[in-house]
């Protein structure tokens, strides 16, 4: 008989967060695309324009939150996909570590960039 | 060698119930089954389980209905036990989680069924058997009962005293279908056979391919007599190509039977001027076959069951599953065309002779379920009475085998001073063993009775030799040929219509089959999952079973229940209130009779005209 599986994280929370972030992303991503490709054309983007938008705290916060959710959603998605392919044991732990480091790096760098844009740093 | 207290052979409804009961009685039980338990044919039962559950109903009414339905060939102690225990056993299934259909107040539903004086058929949708089977298998998993699945049981390990009443059964020999390994299974307390029906003796049957009467044949050869084998129930509406059952519901809703000339023959040819299509199963089955015989069948084979006039709405509402059956298994759209139907073998009332405790005359050998004949169904089984038999007598057999005291049985078994020998009937050929293949019988052919282990070993040896012989043989006949011939003979001559001449013809063909079987070989050289080998062994069992059916049909010269004889169109109560018993004496069947027990607990059942 197959053993009773026991693992520390039951997994429901991550599954749930993946959905919640997705729902959030739909809105923000649509907004982002619209703003930067249809309202302001990407080829016309200048630091000035960016700075102008970023100086609005609400916009800044939204973008940072956008970054965080997208990173979580994307990285968690990648991790899930790998685990579903049968990643086990040490390998799995290593992958998790790499992904966590990468996403922390991404969020940190992104936030830093956003802050420079807004002129706060 | 494997060793357990109780070995249950077969894991359909009866086997599972027996195993659970023996386990609860404290025995170390194992189930040995040629199919994984959930593949057993109990899963095909649709209708339901008869049990007097409701207020206003009463076990005595159930017993009365059953006795009447049996055409007074049921043994009262068995019939009453069934009726008394069915309610508790049915509720027990509910407690195990079986998903019965429900009423608004949350109680289990019951519906009316043919021949019942009260709507007492408890059901779970149109899949009662499926749920019963799965619910009990779940309990087996829960209890951790050992299941050897895909192990084919070949023979009983039985001592060889001349009188079967003195013999003892010590286990079985089985082979692992996946690996071909042959092993002994020692049973310290008892072996319960629950191998199901023998439908494959017929060409056209609602039974599964696995229903080959193995238990019948093995018990028979070990010395336990077969009882009332001539009583075979035929269902009038089964699909011609597969034998899938089209329920009576279609006719109940107003479906009409037509012959190839478009005549509503039930009326136009006067088979049943009052009830027409709704006449009882045997009447309709005979009518259909008469039509075909007289050249008014469609493609010389079947008749049409038409429900188109009921209208799509009504059909979708009440008979939707029938549409799926006709579509999936016959490729026919019941909304557009009539469905082809013909009678099919459905159930065997007879079987291995046992008492109320499930025990045969051989010590330690039990039987339960369709392979057994405690005699609750007598000459004709009522719909919904087989499933309660499985759980009631499955449980009793399991408990008794495990050593529980169930009291002295009232039914006697084996050859004894209460039987009457058959003297008159002339047989066209000598039935029984044809020579070489001494597969059957008891372990130590005439040798000294050894200790249980010795007996088992010897049986294992015989089985190995037999398999080697079949496998090594290079050339000869293949079983499929013999099986087809046998099935055809049974369907031609021992079907719904039986004439003396026909049955004799069948016995002759059976004899030929036996002879041909001497030359049988297994073409597939592999030990891995060799179904060729398995079917070859099954075919041998079918020959034994078919022969006993034909013998019974020949000697019983009356018309009772499902047994119809052309030359004898009435029920002969003075002469025939007795069971037909056939036992295997050193490879030669002998026939004797035992009187029916009509004395119940509180009353004696007086044979009456069976009219509804």
């Amino acid at each position: 008989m197959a053993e009773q599986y026991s693992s520390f994280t039951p997994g429901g929370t991550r599954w749930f967060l993946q959905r919640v972030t997705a729902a959030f992303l739909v809105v923000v991503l649509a907004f982002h695309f619209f703003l930067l490709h249809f309202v302001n054309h990407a080829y016309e983007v200048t630091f000035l324009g960016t700075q102008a938008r970023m100086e609005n705290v609400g916009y800044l916060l939204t973008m940072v939150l956008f970054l965080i959710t997208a990173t979580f959603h994307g990285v968690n998605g990648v991790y899930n996909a790998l685990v579903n392919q049968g990643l086990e044991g040490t390998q799995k732990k290593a992958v998790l570590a790499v992904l966590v480091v990468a996403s922390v790096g991404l969020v940190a760098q992104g936030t830093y960039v956003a802050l420079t844009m807004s002129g706060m740093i | 060698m494997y060793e357990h207290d109780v070995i249950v052979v077969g894991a359909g409804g009866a086997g599972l119930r027996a195993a659970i009961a023996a386990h609860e009685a404290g025995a170390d039980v194992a189930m040995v089954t040629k199919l994984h338990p959930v593949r057993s044919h109990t899963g095909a039962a649709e209708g339901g389980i008869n049990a007097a559950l409701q207020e206003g109903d009463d076990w005595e009414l159930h017993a009365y209905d059953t006795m009447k339905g049996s055409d007074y060939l049921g043994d009262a102690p068995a019939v009453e036990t069934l009726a008394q225990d069915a309610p508790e056993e049915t509720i027990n299934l509910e407690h195990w989680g079986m998903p019965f259909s429900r009423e608004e107040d949350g109680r289990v539903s019951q519906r009316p069924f043919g021949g019942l004086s009260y709507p007492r058929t408890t059901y779970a949708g149109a899949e009662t058997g499926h749920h019963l089977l799965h619910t009990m298998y779940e309990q087996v998993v829960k209890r951790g009962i050992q299941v050897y699945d895909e192990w084919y049981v070949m023979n009983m390990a039985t001592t060889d005293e001349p009188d079967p009443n003195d013999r003892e059964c010590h286990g079985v020999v089985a082979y692992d279908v996946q690996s071909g390994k042959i092993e002994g299974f020692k049973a310290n307390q008892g072996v319960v056979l629950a191998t199901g029906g023998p439908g494959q003796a017929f060409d056209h049957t609602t039974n599964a391919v696995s229903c080959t009467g193995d238990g019948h044949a093995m018990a028979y050869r070990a010395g336990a007599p077969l009882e009332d084998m001539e009583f075979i129930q035929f269902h009038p509406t089964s699909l011609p190509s597969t034998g899938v059952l089209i329920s009576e519901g279609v006719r109940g809703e107003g479906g009409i039977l037509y012959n190839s000339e478009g005549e509503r023959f039930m009326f136009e040819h006067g088979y049943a001027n009052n009830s027409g299509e709704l006449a009882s199963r045997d009447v309709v089955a005979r009518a259909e076959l008469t039509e075909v015989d007289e050249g008014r069948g469609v493609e010389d084979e079947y008749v049409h069951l038409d429900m188109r006039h009921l209208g799509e709405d009504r059909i979708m509402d009440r008979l939707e599953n029938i549409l799926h059956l006709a579509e999936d298994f016959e490729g026919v759209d019941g909304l557009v065309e009539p469905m082809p139907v013909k009678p099919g073998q459905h159930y065997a009332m007879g079987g291995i002779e046992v008492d109320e405790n499930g025990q045969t005359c051989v010590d330690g050998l039990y039987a339960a379920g369709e392979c057994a004949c405690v005699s609750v169904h007598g000459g004709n089984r009522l719909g919904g009475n087989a499933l309660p038999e499985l759980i009631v007598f499955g449980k009793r057999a399991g408990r008794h085998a495990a050593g529980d005291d169930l009291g002295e049985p009232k039914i006697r078994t084996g050859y004894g001073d209460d039987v009457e020998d058959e003297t008159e009937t002339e047989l066209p050929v000598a039935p029984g063993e044809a020579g070489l293949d001494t597969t059957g019988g008891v372990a130590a052919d005439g040798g000294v009775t050894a200790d249980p282990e010795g007996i088992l070993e010897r049986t294992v040896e015989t089985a190995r030799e037999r398999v080697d012989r079949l496998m090594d043989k290079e050339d000869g006949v293949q079983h499929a040929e013999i099986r087809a011939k046998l099935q055809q003979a049974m369907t031609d001559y021992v079907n719904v219509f039986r004439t003396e001449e026909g049955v004799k013809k069948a016995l002759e063909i059976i004899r030929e089959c036996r002879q041909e079987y001497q030359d049988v070989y297994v073409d597939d050289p592999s030990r891995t999952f060799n179904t060729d080998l398995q079917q070859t062994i099954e075919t041998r069992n079918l020959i034994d079973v078919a022969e006993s059916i034909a013998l019974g049909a020949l000697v019983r010269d009356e018309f009772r229940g499902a047994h119809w004889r052309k030359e004898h169109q009435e029920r002969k109560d003075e002469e025939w209130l007795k069971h037909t018993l056939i036992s295997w004496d050193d490879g030669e069947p002998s026939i004797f009779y035992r009187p029916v027990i009509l004395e119940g607990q509180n009353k004696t059942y007086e044979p009456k005209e069976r009219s509804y």
Partner: protein
Amino acid sequence: MSQSYNRGLIEDFGRWKEFSAGMWAWIFHKFTGWMLIGYLFTHIAVLSTSVGAAGNEAAIMAESDVYTTTLQGLEGLFLIRLLEVGLLAVAVFHILNGLRLLMVDLGVGLEAQDKSFYASLVLTGAITVASVPTFLTGVSL
């Protein structure tokens, strides 16, 4: 089972021809998801040029800071524009199918799961095509 036959890798990849809608949806969703997260990393890298640009007021005013020039340089490339259209397609599909999956998770419209997948595909195509003019305006070949 020691002697049974293991059909190996064919089982995992060889049957793609027999895949059904749900499986394709799963594969596309995976693929687009990975593209998107990949893009997110590069996106942040490109935007990081703003760090160098910040502070150099003159350049910013003249629109000749690293950030602006990098972006406009990139945007001036036809290839990048094409890739952007691709990115849009990927994102739109991921969003639409993502919505489909969210519906599935909520148990809504399960019977139409294959149709909604095809709808996502068609819509993605339509939106992508419709956006081509916007994406290709002002590009110097």
